[in-house]
């Protein structure tokens, strides 16, 4: 039944949309403030290990129940992601280390730090935690989950985080386009010298941008580990941080377009996970590994300027010599 298969693939794609969109939004805040962040993958990794720990700790050890426990777990992942992003912020903003260099280091250090934290959190297990951790109750969307022909499957059994992630696009868009804070943050990313001349504390805004990127990526990682998989495993981010970066680039650093590309790439990630779907239509003859490549290939084509036009924030990645 291909319709059911498509519906299930769509349902899986919503999950991956959530991961890619949250991480991409993190990157959005950082890069809009002028700090290139290729450490998103590493920030997510910290989110996975701390999120899996947090969900279990708040739910079981503190006995907060299946609503507050998992929610606080997600927030704990976000908090740890933000703290770890602080390393990137200190390096790039205070010490003016090259953004790419610092991002690479963040990704490298995250792998080791995750193992270290896991060893401390999970009684000496350094590469995974016990499976079947607590998660939020699954949600069936009203009306949509009753669609006939198996299509309803796409909208049932979703984590509430999917909805929350989808809704964040409104506050994010509003903050960046209407709030004084967001406009200043963006102008730090476009022309920090001019922004400073208006009396804006550029480093402060950039710190906020980078820490926010850590919070979003950390929450995304926590969602992946605690809500989607149910435990922490080493390497479970599988390059999703880089796919998020790809979606961010293609979106031209725009939250609404980021939503679209996050879902598109989420779907590309979901297809190979649904064997029923890969047996059908033209993709039958395409090895699943090639479908995994789609987000990266599309991004290379766009970056090379063959389709559309990619324009990053003007000052992103450049050293800013001015003070506060």
């Amino acid at each position, binding site marked *: 039944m291909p319709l059911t298969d498509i519906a299930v693939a769509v349902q899986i794609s919503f999950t991956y949309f959530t991961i890619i969109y949250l991480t991409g939004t993190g990157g959005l805040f950082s890069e809009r403030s002028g700090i290139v962040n290729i450490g998103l993958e590493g920030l997510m990794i910290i989110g996975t290990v701390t999120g899996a720990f947090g969900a279990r700790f708040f739910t079981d050890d503190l006995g907060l129940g299946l609503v507050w426990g998992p929610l606080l777990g997600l927030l704990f992942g976000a908090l740890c992601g933000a703290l770890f992003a602080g390393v990137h912020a200190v390096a790039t903003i205070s010490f003016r280390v090259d953004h790419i260099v610092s991002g690479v280091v963040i990704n490298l250090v995250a792998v*080791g730090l995750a193992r270290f934290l896991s060893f401390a959190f999970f009684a000496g297990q350094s590469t995974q935690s016990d499976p079947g951790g607590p998660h939020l109750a699954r949600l069936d969307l009203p009306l949509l989950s009753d669609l006939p022909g198996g299509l309803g499957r796409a909208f049932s059994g979703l984590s509430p985080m999917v909805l929350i992630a989808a809704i964040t696009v409104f506050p994010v868009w509003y903050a960046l386009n209407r709030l004084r804070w967001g406009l200043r943050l963006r102008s730090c990313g476009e022309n920090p010298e001019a922004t400073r001349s208006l009396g804006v504390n550029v480093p402060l805004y950039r710190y906020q941008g980078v820490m926010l990127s850590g919070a979003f990526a950390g929450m995304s990682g926590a969602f992946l580990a605690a809500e989607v998989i149910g435990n922490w495993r080493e390497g479970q981010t599988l390059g999703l941080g880089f796919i998020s970066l790809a979606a961010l680039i293609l979106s031209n650093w725009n939250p609404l377009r980021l939503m679209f590309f996050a879902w598109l790439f989420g779907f590309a990630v979901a297809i190979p996970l649904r064997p029923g779907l890969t047996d059908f239509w033209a993709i039958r003859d395409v090895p699943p*590994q090639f479908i995994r490549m789609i987000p990266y290939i599309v991004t290379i084509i766009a970056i090379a300027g063959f389709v559309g036009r990619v324009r990053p924030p003007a000052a992103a990645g450049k050293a800013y010599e001015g003070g506060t």
Partner: protein
Amino acid sequence: MASGTAVAPLAAAAARSERLERVLGQALALLASLLIALLLGALMILGYGESPLGVYARIVDGSLGSVDGIGYVLSIATPLTFSALAVAVCFKGGMFNIGVEGQYLVAMVTAAWAALSLDFLPGPLLVPAVLVAAMLGGMAWAAIPAVLKVKTGAHEVVTTIMLNGIAISLLAWAINFPLKFTEAPAGQNVDLRTDLFSDEALVGDIGQYFGVTPGAHLSWLLLLAIAVAVLVWFLLRRTRLGYEARAVGSSPGSARAGGVSIGSIQIRLFLISGALAGLVGMQQILADKGHLGAAYTAQLGFTGIAVAFLGQNNPIGIVFAAILWGILSRGEVALQIGSDVPREFIIILQGILILSVVVTYQVAKRRLAARQLQRAGAAGALEDSAAPGESAGPRESAREGPPQAFRPADGGER
């Protein structure tokens, strides 16, 4: 007149001390970052209630305390040397090759293909053929970002990140389909992998000549890595390409003005970098395992970036940095038994080390630049007071003293 002639030797000395100061500054920065990392590590060890000196001594003893240990250290250092050299070559030209990771994955695929399908070649030809296939694979993968950068301006960091993602899938596809094993031992579950390579395709063990256990898989790839490091040093320091590469890296504008074709330099550097990256995976498939499997060692390309920083992009420094990295990695073993400090401590120590290297190096660079600027200003002021209206920089006067002598004597200072 008297002060005019005095300026020349003063400026020459300044130029010499400038270089000395830079080298000293780099060494100091490296030393400082090592100290910072060891101090922070010591604090962590104290947190576990053990003696920092004792733990450090055991780490060093675990890796350098025995011939076998040294063998392990060197075989860990082998792929990291290739990887860091690949990063450094691009870095000297002002480019950042984050794609070493993807390049060596693709190279492992082409090398595995060569090892399996060229096995009609006699032994002494087969291994070189496999190595060439690996280098070609790495070059092909590096050619994509290079050409895109030069032709379309696509930033190499973004394209190589994306190509890394593609390479992971490509390798997975290769061992799932075209290169998947055909003969598995009966009744055994085998992890996904290629067929085993013939013994003739494997690189020889050199550990046996030094009494190193075969388990360390110390191969003559180590000697190749050292030779390649010397070659890269020669390339960067003694050839026209290296000179132009450094010119492009330090100041693209003046390089272009000097008639250097930036695009062609960048493409050539990227191809060399890709070829070096191709050799990264050879230790694991040709010495450690004898096949390419799903459980390959990843992240060597990224670790190579860390090692390149640690060696400050100097080819010879990189060899030592890779060995230092190997000492730390191997030191894990010493922490496994009879210690409350978990083995993950090592990986954190490596992380702290690389963070402090990056930050102290940046701080040192800025300090040096500020001091030299200050000195140039001071020298300029001296010159101004010596000969009003004359604006020759201290360096120029250092190189060509005579013009000073031609200065009209009506300078007015006498």
